[in-house]
């Protein structure tokens, strides 16, 4: 399993498209920084191909006041969860 990390939102950048194309059926995607905008229910359609394997960093959601708008299908994790994801992954790939 590879952990992909995306810090750009699909509302303004198409970087998510390249990240998704690079993922296989077991890889995971973590949304951080402005990337968490993609975790909102109104944006989640961009990530439907990887449902169940999409994560978002809680502190980046909450700094933006968006924790309540985060889609239920997204696994919201804190920074320790971020560490765990990197432990469990063979490697990480960052998209920006």
């Amino acid at each position, binding site marked *: 399993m590879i952990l992909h990390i995306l810090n750009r939102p699909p509302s303004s950048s198409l970087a998510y498209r390249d990240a998704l194309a690079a993922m296989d059926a077991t890889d995971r995607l973590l949304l951080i*920084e402005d990337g968490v905008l993609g975790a909102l229910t109104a944006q989640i359609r961009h990530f439907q191909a990887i449902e169940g394997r999409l994560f978002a960093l809680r502190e980046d959601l909450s700094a933006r006041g968006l924790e309540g708008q985060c889609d239920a299908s997204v696994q919201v994790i804190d920074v320790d969860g971020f560490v765990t994801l990197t*432990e469990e*992954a063979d*490697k*990480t790939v*960052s998209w*920006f």
Partner: protein
Amino acid sequence: MRYGLLVEGAPYSSQASHSALRFASALVARGHRVESVFFYHDGVYNASRLAAPPQDEPHLYDAWRSLSAEHGTQLQVCIAAALRRGLLDAREADRHGKTGHSVESPFELTGLGQLIDLGREVDRLVTFAP
């Protein structure tokens, strides 16, 4: 595990430095070792000893130094990316005929080869881009 971080965003302009520092402290809290942070692209601006941020904002330069002092993390700055952007240690300043320098220990100017070595040595290399 042994981790390396690659930081490519300028401090304050993007969140990359904040995210990397935050991740680094979570790593060491969990007992992992952060061998080195390699600064490339605009990440090299993190190494400027002259940074004077407002007092009510995080002092990123000092935070990097603390990481290094407390956990032995190396702070490696790509020399090619640094020189063109005005990040020079005393030796490079001398070599380029400049009075004064902007980079000093624990930050060290080094070649890209160190990034390759880091990638080879550590268990995980995580990139924080702007």
